[in-house]
């Protein structure tokens, strides 16, 4: 049982054919030992042979033994109750958390007031002009059309609420992230300390961040902003540090040779040279913040996310879509504008003075604001809206009647979902849950060690064990089964698309805009179409996860395949290799690190959506969080949140290729 992962390796090891050898078995072992992968497995098998009988004898071979769990619900409930009781009296809340919360609420309110004061005309004009100044005419047109669409859909007020929350959250995230990144960029020690934390934070699903914030701050705008900041600041910190650390050493030396002080070096050389990374950091932070600001509706963030959340809870696809479209449009406008700022070169000093353009933009915005006021309406005029909810719901009902079942040949989407659940998810879940607990630990250890190092293996095993200790073993296995199935589908589809995209520039050109749009959309909005197509359950959650993770997988994999050393490809061609041979023997092996990265990303992204799938009937850990929030049962939610974090950490580490592992596996 313990060595069940070893046989495939043994088969590939050369058999001991030499007759003069002392013992064929010894020779076989030696040959096995020569392979690093086999060596790791042998060590693991030896450790298992000692430990497993002991563990199995003590705690049985079923699911995680109850003797090894720690029930945290009592102390957590106690802590939660204490916080609720003392929120208005204890000094920590009065003088610290209270002020933070108050400041955030005041800031969001102030921004919201300004947006309202600008009116729909002013906001649209400001957005268009900023986009024009930063990114050019095309993006400006997109911005105008997008804001107009938000108004037309009757979503002006929720859009402004989301925007106000976003502006505050992004400002704080960028400030916090830039400061952390500055520290990590300038000091090696800080960098070493910070990097694993940032890496881990990036692997965790958004849902895991919600509950700790709620525990301290309750439900409302302040915790929503804080959760958003925690989620969105890491990319800024990471990219700032990266930008500062990758400064051209030659330039730094030259600056030093001119007698610059440390501060001069930072302000005149390192920061300007890191401009591209800094702006990319801002872009990523904005996208992450939007994604989280929408999800944070489950902890009381007002706005578009809340509309989607409310609509989804009553399976009102039409209303969900009406709120979902503005989210997507907002995402596209924000992404295009900030991405263009990073892509363009530094502002040319020979160009006419930049403030003239900005002053012009301000004047135009002001005049539009005044014009809007004279028309009499601050928010979008009621008469100008188009109600799409009813027609969309009619269309959805038609789909339910005609596409769900009974289609000749394919059977319909509901049938597909039922088959996926019944034939793939259920057996997988039952299998994982039937797996002895020590077997699961061993499997994770073997996988993580084969792909990475003993460190990643240790982290992965400890994370999985922590889930068991928390008493969320069965639920986590359920979530894990959903993740594994969705990842498998994602990888099959992703690599199938990536290979032609890597080989044909035309396919790549066709795919690029599609990928661009899909990659900018927040996870949350993917739930809307899948609910329309597949109803409620685990299958729609899986479908949303696949669609969300697919673009990243296609992009990373095709880029990896395309970037394979052209010299190696040319020599393979010159030797007469067929297309398939080139792919199998040159491209796949050389692109291995990139392909592994694609797998890693697939796992991380799929997990984040599968968890959110708790909102549409995905069950398991995600539902526990939603349930905990909805019922005010923070202990349940918090434990599930920690389990989610552990699961995320485990999955990330299992699939994390490291440089040192290139000789392995």
């Amino acid at each position, binding site marked *: 049982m313990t060595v069940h992962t070893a046989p495939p390796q043994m088969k590939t090891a050369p058999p001991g054919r030499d007759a003069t050898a002392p013992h064929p078995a010894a020779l076989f072992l030696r040959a096995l030992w020569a392979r690093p992968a086999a060596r790791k497995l042998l060590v693991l098998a030896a450790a298992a042979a000692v430990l497993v009988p002991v563990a199995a004898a003590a705690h049985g071979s079923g699911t995680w033994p109850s003797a090894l769990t720690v029930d945290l619900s009592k102390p957590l409930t106690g802590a939660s109750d204490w916080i609720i009781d003392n929120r208005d009296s204890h000094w920590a809340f009065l003088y610290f958390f209270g002020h933070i919360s108050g400041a955030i609420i005041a800031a969001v309110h102030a921004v919201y007031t300004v947006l309202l004061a600008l009116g729909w005309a002013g906001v649209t004009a400001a957005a268009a002009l900023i986009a024009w100044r930063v990114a050019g005419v095309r993006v400006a047109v997109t911005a105008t059309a997008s804001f107009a669409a938000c108004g037309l859909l009757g979503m002006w007020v929720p859009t402004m609420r989301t925007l106000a929350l976003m502006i505050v959250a992004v400002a704080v995230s960028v400030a916090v992230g830039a400061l952390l990144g500055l520290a990590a960029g300038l000091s090696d020690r800080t960098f070493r300390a910070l990097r694993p934390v940032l890496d881990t934070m990036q692997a965790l699903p958004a849902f895991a961040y919600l509950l700790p914030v709620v525990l301290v701050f309750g439900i409302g705008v302040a915790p929503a902003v804080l959760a958003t900041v925690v989620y969105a600041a890491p990319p800024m910190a990471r990219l700032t540090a990266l930008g500062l650390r990758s400064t051209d050493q030659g330039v730094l*030396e030259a600056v030093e040779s001119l007698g610059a002080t440390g501060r001069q070096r930072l302000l005149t050389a390192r920061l300007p040279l890191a401009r591209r990374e800094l702006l990319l950091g801002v872009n990523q932070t904005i996208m992450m913040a939007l994604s989280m600001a929408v999800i944070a509706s489950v902890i009381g963030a007002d706005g578009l996310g809340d509309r989607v959340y409310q609509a989804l809870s009553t399976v009102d696809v039409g209303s969900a879509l009406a709120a979902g479209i503005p989210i997507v449009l907002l995402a596209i406008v924000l992404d295009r504008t900030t991405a263009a700022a990073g892509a363009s070169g530094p502002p040319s000093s*020979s160009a006419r003075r930049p403030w003239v353009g900005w002053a012009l933009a301000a004047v135009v915005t002001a005049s539009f604001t005044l014009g809007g006021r004279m028309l009499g309406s601050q928010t979008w005029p009621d008469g100008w809206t188009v109600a799409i909810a009813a027609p969309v719901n009619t269309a959805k009902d038609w789909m339910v009647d005609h596409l769900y079942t009974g289609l000749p040949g394919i059977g319909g989407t509901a049938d597909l979902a039922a088959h996926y659940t019944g034939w793939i998810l259920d057996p997988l879940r039952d299998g994982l849950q039937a797996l002895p607990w020590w077997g699961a630990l061993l499997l994770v250890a073997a996988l993580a060690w084969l792909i990475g190092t003993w460190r990643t293996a240790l982290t992965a095993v400890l994370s999985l064990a922590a889930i068991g200790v928390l008493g969320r073993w069965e639920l986590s296995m359920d979530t894990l089964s959903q993740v594994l199935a969705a990842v498998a589908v994602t990888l099959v589809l992703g690599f199938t698309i990536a290979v032609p995209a890597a080989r044909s520039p035309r396919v790549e050109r066709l795919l690029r805009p599609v990928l661009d749009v899909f990659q900018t959309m927040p996870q949350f909005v993917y739930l809307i179409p899948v609910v329309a197509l597949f109803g409620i359950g685990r299958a729609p959650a899986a479908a949303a996860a696949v669609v969300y993770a697919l673009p990243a997988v296609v992009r990373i994999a095709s880029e990896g395949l395309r970037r394979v050393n052209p010299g190696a490809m040319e020599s393979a061609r010159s030797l007469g290799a067929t297309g398939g041979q080139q792919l199998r023997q040159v491209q796949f092996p050389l692109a291995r690190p990139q392909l592994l990265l694609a797998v890693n990303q697939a796992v991380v992204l799929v997990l984040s959506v599968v968890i959110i799938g708790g909102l549409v009937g995905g069950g398991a850990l995600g539902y526990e969080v939603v349930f905990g929030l909805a019922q005010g049962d923070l202990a349940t939610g918090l434990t599930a949140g920690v389990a989610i974090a552990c699961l995320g950490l485990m999955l990330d580490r299992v699939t994390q290729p490291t440089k040192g592992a290139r000789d392995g596996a």
Partner: protein
Amino acid sequence: MNGTGAGTGATTEQMPEQTPEHAPQAAADAPAVFSVRNLWKVFGPKADRVPGSDLAALSAEELREQAGCTVAVRDVSFDVRQGEVFVVMGLSGSGKSTLVRCLTRLIEPTSGTIAIDGEDVCGMDKGALRDLRRHRAAMVFQHFGLLPHRSVLDNVAYGLEIQGVAKAERRAKAAEMVEKVGLAGMEDRRPGQLSGGQQQRVGLARALAADPEVLLFDEPFSALDPLIRRDMQEEVVRLHRDEGRTMVFITHDLSEALRLGDRIALMRDGRVVQCGTPEEIVGSPADDYVRDFVRDVPREQVLTVRRAMRPAAAGESEEGESLAPTTTVAEAIETVARTGTAARVVDGGRCVGVVDHRSLLGVVAGLDSSRKAAA
């Protein structure tokens, strides 16, 4: 320009251990700008223990095995005199780039002393060191080290900006420097829009803008095409002729060293193998390594008639063309071939010797060194 500088008639510094007190005295009338004594730079763990210990005697290979250290500069001593172009030459890995960085402590030396105008560089605190880098020694780098986000003019003005010079003043000064290096009209371009040669002109202008006492060049033209390199070398020669600024020039290119250098220090494995005028390096190689190095040098272009001449026989000191002692053999050959007779070498109105076909051809054929060695 070859060998006509301060080192005329100096004795060759044959032994690397020899300190410059015993070395070229003839040009010692010019005070030393940089004075380097027993300089060591060792990279690796516990580098301090290497100089002065038993480890110092080990070869680079043995040291790496026994102590895990790499020696970049090994017990180097020399003087850079005011107004001269001092070239440090060696193949890659010989420690020359490390050596020049030690001069302004861009790389901290392990041991030894460096003095600029008699002032101890190693003992300077941060402020004094900054002052040294800002006003007294400016460096030009192989890969230019320009700031890509600034215009040419702002790059040139950058050193002055660091010093805190007011904007109008530094821009005026920078414009003057841009003009001087022949980039007028390109002030608003970015470094990325310039060719390699132009970028290095910007680097040169930036170094000149601070009006430093010494210019340090770290293989400035190695990354350039041969023709551009030639242009830039002439630029440096012109600058030196016009301003007489002291220069320390690092190169791996022998012809560049011979063309620019008043004196050349030849480095190998961190040591200075030989230090002397181009004529001394080519004419009297200190060891087989140097001899090998200069084997392909056209000797008649570097050596002067001083080396080719023989004592004047009776009557010869009165007639024939007269040549200065600094005339190269190639030029003398031209004179002798034209006139068909021997030529006199005249130094200060006095005939110091005679060159004829035989003696000149002897230099070209390399017979002179064996003759000198035999003598």
